[in-house]
């Protein structure tokens, strides 16, 4: 059952059992909903952005262990980051979800804060071996990208 261990790393199960940054924010800078109509996964992301920095993030919703762990890890990876840094984390994460053959080590040198955040996120690298689950892992990231757009296009 080695394959399953690739998918269900201990750190993923930990985030699934004890998701970080659960809840709602009062008067957030952005509130965006994401749906996966095929499997019924739902997520709502609340962002507070102050002076170009994501000062707080909260999330509600439900879904499988991969989608819940991915969103939980995402929240810890972007909290305290600038919008630009958050965009970079999104890009790196989505790259990891599309590049099947290339390991993280071979990707171009990430900058210092990204490296730290992707360290934990790298646990999700095994998901690409399970193509139907990629959308579970990327739901929160696509929703975050929308939320950032909303913040950035706000007057």
């Amino acid at each position, binding site marked *: *059952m080695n*394959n*399953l261990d690739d*998918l*269900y790393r201990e750190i993923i*199960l930990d985030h*699934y059992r004890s998701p970080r940054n659960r809840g709602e924010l009062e008067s957030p800078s952005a509130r965006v909903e994401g749906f996966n109509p*095929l*499997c*019924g*996964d*739902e997520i709502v992301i609340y962002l507070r952005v102050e002076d170009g920095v994501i000062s707080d993030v909260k999330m509600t919703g*439900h*879904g*499988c*262990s*991969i989608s*819940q762990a991915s969103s939980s890890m995402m929240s810890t990876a972007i909290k305290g980051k600038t919008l630009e840094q958050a965009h970079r984390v999104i890009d790196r994460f989505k790259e990891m979800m599309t590049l099947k053959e290339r390991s993280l080590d071979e990707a171009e040198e990430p900058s210092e804060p990204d490296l730290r955040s992707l360290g934990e996120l790298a646990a999700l690298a095994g998901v690409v071996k*399970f193509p139907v*689950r990629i959308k*579970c892992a990327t739901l929160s990231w696509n929703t975050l990208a929308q939320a950032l757009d909303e913040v950035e296009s706000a007057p």
Partner: protein
Amino acid sequence: MSSFDPRRVRVDTPMLSRVVKGRRLTYLDSASSSLPPRTVIEAIDRYYSLHHANVHRGVYTTANEATEIFEGARAGVAHFLNAPGGSDEVVFTHGTTESMNLLARSWGAANLRAGDVVLVSQMEHHANIVPWFQLRETHGIEVRFIPVGEDFRLDLSGIDDLMRGVRLVSVTGMSNVLGTINPVAALARVAHEHGALIAVDGAQSVAHLGTDLSALDIDFLAFSGHKMLGPTGIGVFWTRREILADMPPFLGGGGMIRDVREDGYTPATGPTRFEAGTPPIAEAAGLGAAVRYLESLGMDALAAHERELTADALTRLAQEFDGRVRVIGPATPEQRGGVLSLDVEGVHPHDVAQILDQYGVCVRPGHHCAKPLMRRFGLAATARASFGPYSLTADTDVLIEALGEAVKLFG
């Protein structure tokens, strides 16, 4: 005496010799789509290899053969259903969904007025909900729901109130999520007493229980080929001859007309009026073979076999997991088919299905196109295991083994 033997069905079913992840395939997704026996595959192969031509109006030999195969399949389906009006009542569609849309768009649009009520139930598949919502938008009809009780059965205690203003009752014969077998004969009596008609979504019930239309007093029936060992891409809409005669065409085009002039058209009579365009001919050949095969097995024997499997699985799931694996559906096998919607405590259905796949076990995670029902029970999804004629208690063994792993992994 029926000679039904699931092991023989297994030998007849090529897919079951597949090995997945180093284990034999444990196929528990027949409620979604069933595995065709070799006779169905061969019928399609024979059609394309020897008899392929467009049907109707052809003069050459193979075109006549194709027409005979196609119309022979229609007669075969009529025989399988014991349709009182024979094959003139059997319309080929692309599946249950198209059949339900045909019912709503043709009979519904022609006969229902603003304020008329279509009574469905909370356990319907979206195919028996959305077409009525669409008719609500265009015709102002009301769509009303029969509630589902805590026992996972229709709550008919308020049926007399629910029937007020109802012109059509449209219910599933057997829930694709709960396995619940609905009291269709009783509902038909109630509908007719109130001057309403009754339609049955037979996607599950025709495939797993069989339907005798000369004994069951219903007005419309819809079902799919691929859920009853036939091919995908074909389904059936059945109604009584006199109702069909008054139904306006649904899709317009070739094949469904008697005459087309510059000033208009005259539709054909009978089933072909609803079969615009080239019909699914190869699929009809396959469905014809499927109903012959099912008849050779005997639907009563098949239903009894699935009931036995279900009783055994319900007992063992309750014993093995100490309440951690809940079956969303009636807890005992009476008036219940072989559909086991599982809710594993602390494990999302997608993860359940993923772990089961490592054991070669095919179950379906999701809302099963029945979101009102899922909402009713406060669930986003379940992992659904369902039996077919080829299922064995050995399949339940593997299911339980794999569920044990899921429970263990997620602690």
